[in-house]
């Protein structure tokens, strides 16, 4: 019996190769997309699980609530937290700190010099907390010596050409370090992005300096702990931890109003907290859920194709059903037969999908910025794909099987009334759902693209094109002036990390007896000029006014240019009202002392500039006070150069030449601000890319389905059209009739898709402090796009049928 079914199934497939091909290929494309999305989502959910004993590893985090502001979550901590945790809680076996990603370091071995951006400094116990897979050396004790250095295999090969250069030296920023262990190159699913770990006991490590400047507000390291075997994080009582280890003076006057809650976050959750500020930016679980939902929607669209085409074609199988029933087939026999057929189709789609997924995997990896592999030895994958095939096969096969098996043999065998395959209404509704999904995805894709473009282009609110950043520690007046003299460089100015939103220094400012929390950003005279920022009121800093500059030990702080947010927060009614007013604030210039020790001095506000940011659109723009700062590395990190767009190559060559004159040993670190902006939006760009790609896949599948469905239905209406033409209908009238038939579901789909998409996009956009508004034209355009796709796919069939001679149509049986 099975053989008979199989013959029928395979030959039916062969005879209806267009429909079958469309059904199977559409499903395969859907499966492939779903497979890749599933692998991506799974990868995101399983970060850091390869680290042995990961369930006992936690990262210290704080939730800081300033009155009247939205709470800040951070995984950065004060340097004293690690030792304090270890001392206070017996449940903690090891605690270790990481200084986070440092500025790129110059690494030298013999004549070979390169710049390494993934260098960090780690406490000796770090690898006891994180026993990473090791290639050579004793990892646990590798950082005990002050010159201990742990590198990845890739770095070992790069500098030494072999895997285990234990005991060999590397010059890091000019100081020798000894390779004590080599770890394996870590899989892409880890938040540990570093490939060089120096001991925090090294003299050149930033840790000693950080320890000297320690305050509770100075969140500069990441603190990890490993619990004792059998201990649980719930047993580590973090309540009051901050108050136990920092005195009220250290916490500052604001402490009574600021709530700091400390807690431990499991290692495996670090990647899934996008709202956290600090060392590491993860993936938003909500977005991940959205991406997963898109995967499900794509499979749904493909499965709907399957159902509509199977039932639409059902008429052709009517005779077979009648004969089999007359021969004594029960309904169950026929359901089994048609379900089996559906499973064969779906299984073929599954095989094609695996091949398709392999084919597009490299491109997909570029799109999502991951290194996903399809591991056929993976038992979950091995079970999941067949399970998906079975589930979709059963779900999508059920309706056609029920419809087909329900044909009345007495009717179908007479060859009279050809039964329509199932309810036309059901089929119509399925097409509506399919197009609603499609329109929804087009809407998401458009909105995400608009927001991303907004964030990269207008969102920063500054003219960053042709502006080059050169990292210099510090950016001095001499360097700046030498660079300004290079041909093709139009303007030059130094700036602090704070002005570039790379770090923050918060401080208390007093205006008219009122305390306000603000942030400081030391800049150079022409900083605003480089970015073409014009004042809204007052003026900018001026070289020719000595009083605008910084003078050590002066009775007052340098004058201020403030942004709109600061103007608002400081309580000035309008931009002009702020000009000439006095703000008292402490300028932290004694870098050897802790924050909070500097005396508050008055400054005059000389200008107000529009809000702008180099940071993420997800964060609100901070209230900024800009001033000309001292040219020390702490406040003068980068040189900002506006280049002449017509002479960029010449300017770059000149800049490199000047750099070599100033810093003969160090390679230049330069990049355009646009790249920098792109980097800040890489996660949003990936989300956008994924959703756009998914929308295209859904579009393709839906078009494929509609193409086949229209071929079928126009064929089915051949006789009707023949009659209409015989009665005098012209080609265009028939064409309109057929096109209208396929336009209706698309129009209904809009009604379904618009409100849902509006709500979802609203939610997504509100994750951004600055975002585009939802525009009605986007909705209309998405609907129109779906309609055009529908027309384009049905037009060919419709035209063919509409132009046919009626006599042929009428003879058709």
């Amino acid at each position, binding site marked *: 019996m099975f053989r008979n079914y199989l*013959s*029928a199934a395979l030959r039916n497939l062969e005879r209806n190769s267009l429909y079958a091909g469309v059904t199977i290929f559409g499903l395969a494309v859907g499966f492939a997309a779903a497979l890749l999305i599933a692998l991506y989502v799974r990868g995101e959910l399983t970060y850091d699980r390869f680290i042995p004993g990961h369930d006992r590893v936690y990262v210290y985090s704080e939730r800081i609530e300033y009155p009247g502001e939205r709470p800040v979550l951070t995984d950065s901590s004060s340097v004293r937290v690690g030792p304090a945790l270890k001392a206070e809680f017996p449940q903690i076996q090891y605690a270790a700190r990481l200084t986070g990603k440092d500025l790129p370091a110059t690494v030298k071995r013999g004549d070979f010099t390169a710049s390494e951006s993934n260098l960090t400094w780690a406490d000796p116990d770090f690898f006891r907390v994180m026993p990473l897979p090791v290639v050579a050396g004793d990892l646990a004790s590798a950082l005990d010596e002050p010159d201990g250095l742990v590198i990845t295999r890739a770095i070992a090969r790069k500098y030494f050409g072999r895997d285990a250069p234990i005991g060999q030296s590397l010059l890091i920023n000019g100081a020798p370090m000894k390779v004590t262990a080599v770890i394996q190159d870590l899989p892409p699913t880890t938040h540990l992005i570093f490939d060089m770990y120096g001991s925090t006991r090294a003299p050149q490590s930033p840790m000693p300096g950080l320890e000297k400047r320690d305050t509770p507000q100075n969140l500069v390291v990441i603190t990890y702990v490993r619990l004792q075997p059998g201990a649980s994080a719930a047993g580590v009582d973090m309540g009051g931890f901050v108050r136990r280890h920092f005195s009220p003076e250290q916490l500052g006057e604001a402490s009574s109003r600021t709530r700091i809650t400390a807690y431990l976050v499991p290692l495996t959750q670090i990647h899934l907290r996008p709202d956290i500020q600090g060392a590491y930016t993860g993936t938003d679980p909500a977005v991940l859920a959205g991406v997963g939902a898109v995967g499900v929607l794509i499979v749904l669209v493909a499965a709907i194709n399957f159902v509509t085409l199977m039932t639409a074609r059902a008429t052709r199988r009517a005779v077979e059903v009648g*004969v089999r029933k007359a021969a*004594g*087939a029960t*309904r169950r*026999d026929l359901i089994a037969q048609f379900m089996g057929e559906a499973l064969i189709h779906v299984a073929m789609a599954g095989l094609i999908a695996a091949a398709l997924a392999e084919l597009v995997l490299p491109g997909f990896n570029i799109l999502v910025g991951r290194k996903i592999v399809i591991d056929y030895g993976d038992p979950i994958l091995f079970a999941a794909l067949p399970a998906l095939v079975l589930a979709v096969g059963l779900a999508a096969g059920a309706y056609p099987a029920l419809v087909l098996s329900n044909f*009345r043999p007495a009717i179908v065998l*007479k*060859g009279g009334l050809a039964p329509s395959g199932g309810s036309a209404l059901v089929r119509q509704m399925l097409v509506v759902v399919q197009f609603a999904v499609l329109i929804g995805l087009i809407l998401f894709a458009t909105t995400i693209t608009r927001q991303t473009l907004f964030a990269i282009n207008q969102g920063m609110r500054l003219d960053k094109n042709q502006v080059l950043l050169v990292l210099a520690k510090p950016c001095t007046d001499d360097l700046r002036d030498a660079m300004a003299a290079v041909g093709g460089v139009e303007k030059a100015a130094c700036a602090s990390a704070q002005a570039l939103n790379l770090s923050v220094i918060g401080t208390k400012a007093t205006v008219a007896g009122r305390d306000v929390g603000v942030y400081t950003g030391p800049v150079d005279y022409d900083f605003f000029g480089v970015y073409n920022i014009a004042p809204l009121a007052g003026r900018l800093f001026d070289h020719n006014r000595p009083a605008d500059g910084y003078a050590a030990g002066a009775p007052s702080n340098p004058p201020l240019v403030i942004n709109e947010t600061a103007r608002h927060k400081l309580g000035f009614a309008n931009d002009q009202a702020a000009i000439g007013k006095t703000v008292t604030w402490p300028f932290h210039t004694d870098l050897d002392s802790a924050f909070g020790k500097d005396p508050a001095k008055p400054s005059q506000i000389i200008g107000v500039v529009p809000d702008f940011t180099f940071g993420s659109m997800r964060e609100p723009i901070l209230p900024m006070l800009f001033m000309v700062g001292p040219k020390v590395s702490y406040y003068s990190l980068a040189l900002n150069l506006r280049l002449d767009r017509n002479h960029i190559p010449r300017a770059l060559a000149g800049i490199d030449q000047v750099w070599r004159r100033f810093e003969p040993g160090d390679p230049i670190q330069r990049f355009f601000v646009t790249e920098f902006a792109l980097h800040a939006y890489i996660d949003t760009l990936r989300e956008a890319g994924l959703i756009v790609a998914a929308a295209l896949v859904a579009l393709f599948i839906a078009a494929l389905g509609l193409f086949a469905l229209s071929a079928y239905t126009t064929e089915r209406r051949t006789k009707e059209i023949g009659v209409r033409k015989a009665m005098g209908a012209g080609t265009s009238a028939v064409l309109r009739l057929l096109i209208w038939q396929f336009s209706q579901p698309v129009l209904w789909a809009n009604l379904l898709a618009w409100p849902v998409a509006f709500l979802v996009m609203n939610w997504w956009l509100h994750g951004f402090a600055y975002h585009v508004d939802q525009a009605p034209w986007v909705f209309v355009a998405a609907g129109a796009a779906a309609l055009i796709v529908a027309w384009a796919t049905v037009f060919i069939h419709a035209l063919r049928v509409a132009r046919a001679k009626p006599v042929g149509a009428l003879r058709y049986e």
Partner: protein
Amino acid sequence: MLKLEKVSKTYRTTEVETRALSEVSMEIAPGEFVAIMGPSGCGKSTLLNVLGLLDSPTSGAYGFFGEDVARLPEARLTALRRDRIGFVFQSFNLIDDLSVAENVEVGLLYRGGPGGQRRKRVEEALQRVGMAHRARHKPQQLSGGQQQRVAVARALVSRPSLILADEPTGNLDTANGEAVMALLRDACAAGVTVVMVTHSLVHAAEAQRTIKLLDGRVVSETLLAA
């Protein structure tokens, strides 16, 4: 024996009620060859569907070889069709996707039993209708007459007690029509009851009895060969 007592069949739509059969009573003896005639729309096909258990009467009683089948559940009707009835249709109704042999096999498929035995019976049936040499062909590769011979083989292969033929020669030329009639006569001679709907007086004359229908009623019965 087939026995209909005051069998009526009514089709209802929301607006119209159509009475296809109206209190039809008849008896058909085992091994009898009966022809049913009448103009289009007189209820011939409905009668055949009721006799073939493809449709249930709205009212009346139907004794099918001693069993009252008028109110039986679908599952039991399916079993009776499978075990006792063979069908031959005017439009052949062969499954395009299956070969000739596979089409004939469908007649046995739902009875279970070993595949080897099934294939043997398929071969016998095809030999009986002279189509064994075309066993691997597809229906579209055959002439109408050949297709109908395959359809007869399909009806015979299950060794039914009853063959119901709905205008089996309606789409065939004279020679092919005669060949199919010969097959039906042979089956009848072997003890199978044959009920055939036909428009052809010539072919009706080959039956032992002709029942004429008009507007869903039996209007005359002619005993020919007795």
